[in-house]
């Protein structure tokens, strides 16, 4: 075990602070939804990109510090993170392309 036995409480609280600030930023943007960010952007709106990036940042904080991935052996960490990241990107890419295709194909047939 790679843990030093002195307390890392300070670092934990710091990470909690960062996670809280990121959540607050997300919620604030989610409530005001500034038009400049909400109504345009590449692929989806800028606002959605911001949400996704902040979410990944929070996930990194939780996995690396709270779940202590930073202290595990390099290839243990990689066996988990690389597997997950590869498979999830693969699945999400295919399903979102498929979803978009369904929209293109079906929406002209819907009568509003």
């Amino acid at each position, binding site marked *: *075990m*790679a*843990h030093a*036995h*002195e*307390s*890392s*409480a300070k670092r*934990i*609280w710091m990470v*909690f602070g960062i*996670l*809280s600030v990121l*959540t*607050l930023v*997300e*919620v604030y943007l*989610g*409530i005001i*939804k500034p038009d400049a960010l*909400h*109504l345009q952007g590449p692929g*989806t*709106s800028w606002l*959605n990109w911001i*949400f*996704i990036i*902040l*979410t990944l940042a*929070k*996930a990194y904080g*939780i*996995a690396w*510090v*709270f*779940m*202590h991935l930073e202290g*595990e*052996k390099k*290839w*243990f960490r990689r*066996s*988990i993170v690389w*597997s*997950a990241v590869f*498979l*999830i990107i693969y*699945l*999400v890419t295919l*399903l*979102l392309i*498929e*979803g*978009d295709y*369904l*929209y293109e194909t*079906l*929406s002209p047939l819907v*009568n*509003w």
Partner: protein
Amino acid sequence: MEANIAVPNENNKETWGGGNVKPFGASYGKMMMWFFILSDALTFSGFLAAYGLTRFKFIDSWPIADEVFTHVPFMHGEYPMIYVAIMTFILIFSSVTMVLAVDAGHQMKKNKVAWYMFATIVGGIIFVGSQAWEWNTFINGTYGAVKTTEGKVLQFVKDGKQIALADFVVGERTDNRVQHTPKNGLWFESEKTISNYSVAQVVAAYNANPDIQVRTELMDMDLKKKTILSREEGALQLAKTKMVVEGANLRANEYGNTIFADFFFFITGFHGFHVVSGIILNIIIFFNVILGTYEKRGHYEMVEKVGLYWHFVDLVWVFVFTFFYLV
């Protein structure tokens, strides 16, 4: 330290102890907890990716989340996002107390571990309670809407703001339809809850109130707002009304597309189920801590393993929060 502390190996030569080599330098239990978490993460990704596909499929008519989740307990009025944000904080905070318990475990401070575990359990229970409240609000609904024969949900607005059926439809149900119960039926077969108003009554109220307009699910993609129909177009759409929808279930909901509510129930429900399992595991470990099991064992690795699961539950919520409530 043996790879798996739970199986004493010295006296039983039949069992392979794995030697003293630990793959990845992690104990058996911790490694397997991580690989379980990996597989569970892929399960959740599957659900969220399916949600993404469905949302892309109905990209021009998906409900707008901050118009759906607007309530806060003990408060009137609309506060979009606020309550889920509070829930998120509760879960992140319980993650912090969990990691502090693990940290105290490394220093072999039994009382501290116990107190932090206790705080984690309380946080988890508050979260599940909030989830239950959120479900209750979602199921009961706020405004009510009607559904057409084409399966479209029509909502009602006044001056651009959504208005509840109860605010403009007057009186009791006019068609004398009453809920079928074992008490009033000779041949009782169960019946779903019937709506407070009949279809004809809602249409009549619409015709009687010139300032009410119909809002459809269709989104104006440039403004990201739902389309509000003129009075005449609204009357045409209303003529196709099949049923009055109040709240949500798996077949119909007042927010829009049926599958929106289905995904809400399924994904938040599956996450809530994980939280409940996490609380139960935490309680078991909490009692073990109090009984001194890990003090005797010489290390608090069990707290660490259950902590991994608890953080994972938090991690999943971070994604559910983003993709269900924000994006």
